[in-house]
């Protein structure tokens, strides 16, 4: 085993505010959300945000939180915004630390995680082929709605409205106007692309790299385009 022992990758993870766990309505509301999109939540990783949360200085509290989330098919993987005491307890409970935290013993706090540098050498293993199947959406994705194709591609046969968000671990194809946000390669696949019949997006992202509306090249707006990650940069080319 030589080289490339550790590689960087960017992931989309759900974040839940720790205080919410104590809210009596939390259980029913989460259950309702999970019921609506079971595939989205199934065994999905969750980070607990401890910002302004009282307590959580004991290992047992993290174990309890893990148990609550487990009941909703979610997996607690780490914490964020921890105070030093909370940080220790979380570590003892086997939870990873996601920046930012008040003080981390071993790592520098970065305001924004930098993507892993592009490597010259070829990766030792090709990324696992996506296991999920393509998700097909035939109705407009409207403001406030989120659609996520876990482990596969997303095909939308209608417009994506401003204020709506579509995401996929694979490619995203939109046979209509993209006016909201689109996040392809949401689990870090840099080869993922976004295709749309008309670019009016609020945000486009591939494997964690993103462009907001005002960064989109003006001469590509309102055109049919594809968006790809080339040498670490998002490029928008007309179709």
């Amino acid at each position, binding site marked *: 085993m030589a080289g490339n022992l550790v590689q960087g990758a960017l992931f989309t993870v759900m974040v839940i505010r720790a205080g919410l766990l104590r809210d009596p309505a939390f259980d029913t509301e989460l259950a309702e959300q999970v019921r609506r999109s079971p595939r989205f939540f199934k065994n999905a990783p969750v980070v607990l945000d401890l910002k302004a949360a009282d307590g959580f200085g004991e290992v047992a509290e993290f174990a309890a939180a893990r148990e609550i989330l487990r009941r909703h098919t979610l997996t607690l993987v780490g914490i964020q915004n921890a105070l030093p005491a909370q940080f220790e307890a979380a570590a003892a409970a086997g939870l990873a630390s996601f920046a930012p935290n008040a003080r981390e013993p071993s790592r520098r706090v970065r305001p924004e995680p930098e993507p892993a540098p592009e490597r010259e050498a070829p990766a030792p293993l090709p990324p696992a082929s996506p296991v999920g199947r393509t998700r097909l959406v035939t109705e407009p994705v409207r403001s406030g709605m989120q659609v996520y194709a876990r482990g596969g591609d997303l095909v939308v046969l209608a417009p994506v409205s401003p204020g709506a968000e579509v995401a996929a671990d694979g490619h995203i194809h939109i*046979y*209509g106007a993209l006016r909201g946000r689109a996040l392809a390669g949401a689990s870090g696949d840099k080869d993922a692309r976004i295709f749309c019949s008309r670019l009016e997006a609020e945000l486009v992202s591939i494997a964690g790299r993103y462009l907001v509306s005002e960064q989109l090249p003006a001469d590509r707006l309102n055109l049919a385009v594809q968006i790809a990650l080339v040498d670490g940069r998002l490029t928008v080319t007309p179709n």
Partner: protein
Amino acid sequence: MTLILRVSGRVLREEARVSGRRKEEAFLAKIIVVTSGKGGVGKTTTAAAFSAGLALRGHKTVVIDFDVGLRNLDLVMGCERRVVFDFINVINGDAKLNQALIKDKRNDNLFIFPTSQTRDKEALKREGVDRVLAELKESFDYIICDSPAGIEHGAITALYFADCAIIVTNPEVSSVRDSDRIIGILNSKSRRAERGETPVSVSLLLTRYAPDRVTKGEMLTVDDVKEILSIPLLGVIPESESVLRASNTGTPVVFDGESPAGHAYLDAVARFLGEQRELRFLKPDRRGLFRLIFGRA
């Protein structure tokens, strides 16, 4: 691309998308919610005008105020001094339906179901609303629900039982976005959606349309709004001072034969009933300018 063929009481959902034609289904629409997400766009004005328009066309119609706590509908309908019992009383079983319904003085087909000003929206219990609507269905052709603004309990309860929804939108970005949001909610949270039945038939009513401001680029055009919302267009109601006059005198604007907004509402009602009507009032009103020049009001 969305093709608008017809929006009517017997509703044909007919949308040709890239994917091809969608299956056509017909159902008898009884419960119509007037909703928007955003506040102050003209829902109550529309509920009043639309119910009066249906009544004028011979359909027995009741208009219900779901805006518990604000209670505007009875003012706009001009029956505020005849309110004894209200929607919440009937939901709670404290009064009978016929004790609370107010018959319109101008049209025998039209009834107003006022709401409570002293309660809050939490008083709208879903089972109670279901029971009352079921009873109303027995004796009315159409039940119009005037929704409160927002996307919370009151608005959700107003749209939950709907067969049809009239999405009231103003030609401006925030109103369009909120309408889009409420359409998504209709598609996911209505009873029809929950039961997997034929979806609620949704159509767009663009109100407070000021053609001169649209021409100047200060407001979105009809096509802009249609394009973003991609639902069939039921009508365009021009911005008109006659609307304010109508609500101040408690007269639904369709009773004002002089009002362009009144005519536009009657056109929308006709389209809803399956007739073809050209869109009107999309161009700046030259006559208005003329009157101005000759100093007449």
